[in-house]
């Protein structure tokens, strides 16, 4: 479906995407990465908006740039809101369908169907300048679906949606996947991606760090110590106690009375920590697990890539 072979994209001296090689067969994939990781650049390369500096990109077995036949089979929903404020949603989607080569009648029919599918039927004749964020997101999805593509590429499609909207959109995407069509869905929120698909790719700093199911990724992290940050009034004393207990792999001091410990037995540490703290006479102000965030996941993966763990 999508093949990238040693693709690098440079903007002058800034690296957008760095030596990415991947091959995605049919199905649904999530592209997960923090802001600025290169997701949008990667999607722009796949949709033919950018040309790779090094390497090749093939989508549905052909290069994407200026590929008329490919665009018939591709639906794209970019992240940015590029909507004409003085134009109605219906007119806009209809216009984009005309740009697909559909006649006027067919364009209207397809537009009505797509707009109804995303739940925008009531507001379709209102000007897009008056749309809420969620409405804009829906109309954007409508223009991506209306021509019946085989592969849907979405960049942060759930941005700005309320919980009900997210739920409806997630259902829609799951329906899409069940119909046997392809989906590539970029987000920086792990659970959003996990709600739609179990296959995802992790990108950070322009590099593809990992690809696979969520279980495979978490297994990968099994050997990476779990990090816990503790802020207390006597970090050296607490550190000594924890080391004596033999549950930590590493301890480092982070300034402002904080220490960060790495452990392969987080459950034991959490269970025993209150007792150790009390017996040491140390007063703890804050306890935080660094791994409760996507950034921690990426930090761990980056450490593996750099050979630090």
């Amino acid at each position, binding site marked *: 479906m999508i093949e990238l072979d040693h693709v690098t994209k440079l903007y002058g001296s800034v690296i957008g995407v760095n030596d990415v090689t991947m091959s995605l067969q049919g199905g649904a994939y999530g592209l997960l990465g923090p802001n600025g990781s290169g997701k949008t650049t990667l999607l722009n390369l796949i*949709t033919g908006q950018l040309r790779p500096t090094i390497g090749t990109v093939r989508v549905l077995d052909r290069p994407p740039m200026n590929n008329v036949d490919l665009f018939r089979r591709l639906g794209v929903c970019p992240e940015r809101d*590029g909507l004409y404020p003085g134009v109605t949603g219906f007119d806009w989607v209809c216009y984009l369908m005309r740009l697909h080569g559909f006649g006027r009648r067919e364009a209207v029919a397809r537009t009505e169907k797509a707009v109804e599918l995303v739940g925008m039927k009531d507001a379709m004749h209102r000007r897009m300048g008056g749309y809420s964020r969620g409405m804009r997101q829906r109309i954007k999805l409508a223009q991506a679906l209306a021509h019946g593509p085989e592969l849907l590429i979405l960049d942060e499609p759930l941005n700005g949606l309320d919980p009900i909207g997210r739920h409806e959109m997630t259902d829609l995407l799951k329906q899409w996947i069940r119909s046997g069509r392809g989906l590539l869905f970029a987000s920086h929120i792990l659970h959003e991606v996990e709600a739609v698909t179990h296959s995802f790719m992790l990108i950070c700093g322009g590099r593809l760090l990992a690809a696979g199911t969520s279980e495979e990724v978490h297994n990968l992290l099994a050997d990476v110590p779990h990090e816990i940050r503790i802020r207390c009034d006597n970090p050296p004393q607490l550190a000594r106690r924890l080391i004596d207990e033999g549950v930590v792999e590493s301890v480092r001091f982070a300034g402002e009375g904080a220490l960060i410990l790495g452990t392969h037995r987080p459950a034991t540490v959490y269970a025993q920590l209150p007792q150790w703290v009390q017996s040491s006479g140390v007063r703890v102000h804050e306890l935080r697990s660094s791994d409760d965030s996507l950034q921690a996941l990426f930090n761990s993966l980056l450490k593996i890539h750099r050979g630090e763990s």
Partner: protein
Amino acid sequence: MNALRAIWLFLRLRTRHLFRVLLNAVRTIPAVLGFECRRVSALPRLIITVGLVIFPGVLAALVHYCGAHVRDPEPLRQPERWTFMMFVLVPEVVCLLGLLLWATPVIQTEVEGKTWPYLAVRPCGKVPILLGKYLTAVVWTVLAAWLALVLSLIVVIPSGKAHSGVLVLGALVVLSALTYGALYVLIGVLFLRRSMIVAVAYTFVFEFLVSWIPAMVKQFTVQYHLRNLAAIWLPSDYVSGFFLASAGTAPWWQHVLILLGMTAVFLTAAALVLRRRQLITAPEV
């Protein structure tokens, strides 16, 4: 034999592909034209259009009535003066200003408005959009210029063969809009961020200064050909020294062909550049 067959198949495929592309373009360009015309009827654009339409008429009234005196009670009834004024105002000022506003930023507006990615991923995307927007700019400019011409006739009708003069100017408006529109579209594609500045500088330096240089270079300007066409087509009493100053000996059809050829070259260049350019919606600086 096999090689010939392969070449024949390749040509057939490419021709079919080209035919399909052209057919799609023919179907899509009217859609772009219709959409853009609806968009341009927003208030700011209408105000500017009205300004352009009334400007020549107001100026004609000023010169004709305020510049009148006993020895010359109707200054603009003189065909020479009327033609000179209308030529400068209508096919030049009105057309150039209109195209500066509508033709130069054809792609810049889409990139800055972040609507470009939605358009560029359509099968009939980049080039039909470019051509459709070009046609929109030309249509609006020609309409505004023709209206301006008609309005100025309400102020004063020159003596002699006024209808010939008007028809000639009307035709020059079309040629001016087509050629300058294509030129400005090319400038807009080449210089995304500074398209208007470059267009102004180019027009001032190249079109208005170079077109008067008595050398071969003037033949590369649109102005030179427009002035020559005016000198050839206008009735003799409508032709002033302004048109004769740089008149050549080429027949009218040569000038028309050159202008249309320039239009085709500019549009083709713009389309080729647009297909190659990587346009990401970075914020303007």
